Every structure is written in structure tokens, then in C-alpha cells.
């Protein structure tokens, strides 16, 4: 949520009406967007640029509406893939972190491979996966590969960030391993875990898109990334832009939902979710 950091205030702004300030911070980017679109439209019209080179914004929106049946189906396909990859990443990341936390041997044995999986570009792995796995599975696995590492590493960090004195207290009262995990380690790790999930949401979308492009095959269940590739071959540039717009919107919505979830879960107690007045 670093984007919400307020800029340094000058002396006369030191005691601003916070509602007016918030309004300005919403209106300013909207104004920039409107100006950008207007300029784009203007440039296209004044120079008579043909739509197969650069479509005007109005043309893109028109395509979005006329092609909605095709695009919406693709959007659903991509979203489902992303969701499957994200859920797999969330479960896999948290489960692995818990296993690593309980057994050092397991951590030493497997952690290097988690890192290797993370640092190898997924776009290079995708074609191989498509050879060995059914297409849909391969796409989900790609989304999982890019998504699970931030969940794993953040959760591991969180599980290791337990307050020492609290751990001593649990020891004093003879807490079992399960109790320590449930009442101490998991709540301590929750803010870190949610941070990891927030990153994983966006990455799952990227993983799904990369795999779809690598797969590049048509069919009923073809996602937005495939539509972009296909429209590119056909020089249907407005549709490329329309699909791109949808992908971008999907990414924003995913991030927003996860940020909101994180805020709702943590708002009562965690520093990151507290207002400035505290």
C-alpha cells in the first residue's frame, strides 16, 4: 500500500482537510487518465492513423462492446486459470512453509529447489510443461510456479518472527507443538502471509498469461492472452487493446480484493492496517 503514502506537506498544508485531500488524490490520477486518452484520440484523428497501426480509444471501446461475447468468455477462462493457480499457490506456499517450520531437515532438503523454481523464468518453463501436461493443467501449474514462492518465503519469515518473550511464555505454560503453532506462530505469521498472498495474486495472473501465450492454441476455452496473440496475427489491433484493457482491469481487481481482505483481517491489531491518527 505504498502508493497511499502521502507526499511531504508544506507548512500551509500541514493541517489539511483530510477529506478534501483524499478527493484530490482520487481526482488527480483520473484527470491524468482522461487527459492521456484525449491526447491519444487527438493524435490518431489529426494524423489519420489507420486503426491497424494505432486504434483510437473510441475504437477500442467500440471493439470491447462489439466483441464482448468472445472477450468475456476469454476473460472467464483466464480468471478461472488464475484463481486455480492462486489457490494452489496459497495452499502450496503455506503448507510448505509449515512443513519447513516443523522440520529443519525438510527445509534444508527442499528450499534450494523452491528457489531454483522461482529464479528460472517461467516463460522458459512453460513450453516444457505443455509437452508433458494437458494444456489446462500446464497453464495452472505455470500460475502456481510464479505464485507460490512469495507465499512460501513470506510465511516462513512470519513463522520465524515470533516474539521471543511470548514464545517463552508458551514454553512456561507447557504449550504443545500444535498449540504453539495455532495460537502463536500462525497469528504472528498472518500479516506476512497476507503480504505474500497479495503478491501471489498478481503473479498468478502473469503466470496464466505467459502459459496461455506459450500454449497458443485455439478452442472454446481460450484465454485473453491467447486472444491477444491471435488478434496480433490477424492485425486486429483494436481487439488486442481491448483484451489488454481487460487483463489490466483483472489485475487491478485481484490486487484490490486481496488488499481489502488483508485490511479487514488485520484492522483491529496490526500496525500496517492502522490509520495515521493512531
Amino acid at each position, binding site marked *: 500500500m505504498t502508493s497511499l503514502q502521502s507526499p511531504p506537506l508544506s507548512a500551509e498544508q500541514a493541517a489539511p482537510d483530510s477529506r478534501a485531500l483524499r478527493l484530490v488524490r482520487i481526482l488527480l490520477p483520473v484527470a491524468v487518465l482522461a487527459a492521456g486518452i484525449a491526447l491519444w484520440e487527438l493524435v490518431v484523428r489529426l494524423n489519420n492513423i489507420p486503426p491497424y497501426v494505432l486504434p483510437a480509444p473510441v475504437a477500442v471501446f467500440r471493439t470491447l462492446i462489439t466483441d464482448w461475447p468472445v472477450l468475456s468468455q476469454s476473460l472467464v477462462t483466464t480468471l478461472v486459470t488464475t484463481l486455480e493457480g492462486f489457490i494452489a499457490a496459497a495452499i502450496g506456499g503455506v503448507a510448505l512453509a509449515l512443513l519447513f517450520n516443523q522440520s529443519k531437515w525438510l527445509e534444508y532438503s527442499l528450499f534450494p529447489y523452491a528457489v531454483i523454481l522461482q529464479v528460472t523464468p517461467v516463460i522458459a518453463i512453460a513450453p516444457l510443461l505443455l509437452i508433458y501436461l494437458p494444456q489446462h493443467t500446464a497453464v495452472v501449474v505455470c500460475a502456481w510456479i510464479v505464485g507460490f514462492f512469495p507465499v512460501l518465503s513470506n510465511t516462513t519469515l512470519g513463522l520465524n518472527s515470533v516474539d521471543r518473550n511470548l514464545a517463552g511464555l508458551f514454553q512456561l505454560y507447557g*504449550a504443545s507443538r500444535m498449540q504453539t503453532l495455532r*495460537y502463536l506462530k500462525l497469528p504472528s505469521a498472518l500479516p506476512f502471509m497476507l503480504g505474500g498472498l497479495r503478491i501471489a495474486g498478481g503473479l498468478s495472473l502473469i503466470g496464466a498469461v505467459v502459459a496461455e501465450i506459450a500454449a497458443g492454441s485455439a478452442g472454446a476455452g481460450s484465454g485473453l492472452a491467447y486472444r491477444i496473440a491471435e488478434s496480433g496475427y490477424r492485425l486486429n489491433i483494436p481487439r488486442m487493446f481491448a483484451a489488454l484493457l481487460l487483463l489490466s482491469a483483472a489485475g487491478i481487481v485481484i490486487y484490490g480484493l486481496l488488499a481489502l481482505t488483508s485490511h479487514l483481517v488485520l484492522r483491529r491489531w496490526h500496525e500496517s492496517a492502522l490509520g495515521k491518527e493512531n
Partner: protein
Amino acid sequence: MAEPAASSETSSGASSLAVSLRGVTKVYDNGLNALGPLDLDVRKGEFVSLLGPSGCGKSTALRLIAGLNAPTSGSVRVSHRAGHERARDSIGFVFQEPTLMPWANVRENVRLPLKLSHAPAVQASAHVGDALIRAGLAEFAEAYPRELSGGMKMRVSLARALVTDPDILLMDEPFAALDEITRFRLNNDLLSLWRNLRKTVIFVTHSVFESVYLSQRVVVMTPRPGRLGAEIAIDVAERGEEFRTSAEYAAYCREVSHALTPLQSGRPGS
């Protein structure tokens, strides 16, 4: 480490001693010789302060009594009630920081020791309610730690230590981080709790005034490795704000300060 067998025993029965340390030493893994050899007896129901310069091992001694660490050598004996299986069932511990779970409200924080020992829910709720009232927290049961002041957080920590009805209360500089006014109030509250509940209290502090005000006996420890430096009995019938401003109090403070000073000289930086 080829030390004489370190033991951490418990004894139930008629002994009048709550805690007994014999030749206890603690050498940490990094070679730091933190404590001892230390001999210390604490009678049941007694209020004892461990006073000493920082780093003299008084917190270490407390952790050894609590069973949080094992002694390198020597024996730690903690008496416990017949119904209690282990020594730690009879011990309540208050840390220097409030050490609360930020994700849980006051009630859940106080309930924690009972939850960990699988106490029946109805009984636990009653105990939690009692502890909250005793610590003056009844109105704050649903508040979260971040919503409380430093003094209130410390009260929660105290309520949590009392909720298991322990015989022995171990307190590790619990009020050191509080402002003086709050500390005075908590000192008085602690004294009335001690009078009413008759717990054994071992109170670690680096404040001469606090140790004299609170305890029946002040144990002055030497700089690291901490040993018994001097013992001063504070023989007062009535403790309260009047005692705090009396000549008797000032005299005791002077005596304890004098006992502390020669132990410190020649050991700079401790």
C-alpha cells in the same frame, strides 16, 4: 559441558521454602558467565526483591526458577502444590515488557494460560473474570493491546500471570518502562494483591526505592557473574504512601544503596 549434574527438581510437601537455589551457575552457549554460584532461599508467602546492576544475572536467575532455562550447575528447587503436576503449574511470570498477543483482546490474552492447559471452558471464564476484576480491567476486557496505555498493558500481563492462581509470582522488572506515577499506583496495587492473595513474589528490579517499598527482603546481587552480595530485611508493619515519605523508608533506601555501592566499584560498565 562436564559440570556437576545440574538438576531442576520439584518437591511437594510441608517444606516452608517456596524456592531454593543451591550453587546455581549459568554459563550461556556463547561463553558468557552470567550467574553464580548463587544460593537463595525464599520462604512461602515472602516478597523478595532481587536488586543489582544491569547484566548481573538477576533476570537469568528468574528464568532458571521458572524453568525457562536450565542451570549449568547447581540445583533449583521449586515447591508445588499437591494438585499440581509440575513446578511450572505453580508459577506465574511477568516479563519486563507486557508481552501480549497483539491479535487477541484483553480477555483472550488473560485466558491464554488456561487455554494452553486445557482448562474446562466454564471454569476458565470464571477465573478470567476474577483476574480481570482483580487487576482493574473489567471494563477493558474487549480492548486490544494497542488501544491500552503502558500501565494498562502491564495490568493485563499481571492478570494473565494470576489467572492460573499460582503460588509463586516471578516478576522481571515489570514496571521499569512505566512513568513514575503509573509505577507508584501499580506498586500499591501489587502490594494489596500480595496481602490479599498471599503469593510468594520474587521481584527483579534495578530500583533501590522500588525494592525497599515493596519487599520484605532485598537481595543485593554482585555484578556479573551475579552472586549474593548482601541481604537486607525491610521490617515494616504498614506499607503505603505514608511509608514512602517516612524517615524509616529513607533510612532503608540509604542502607540498600550503601550495600549496592561497594559491589559496583571497580567494575566499570556494568
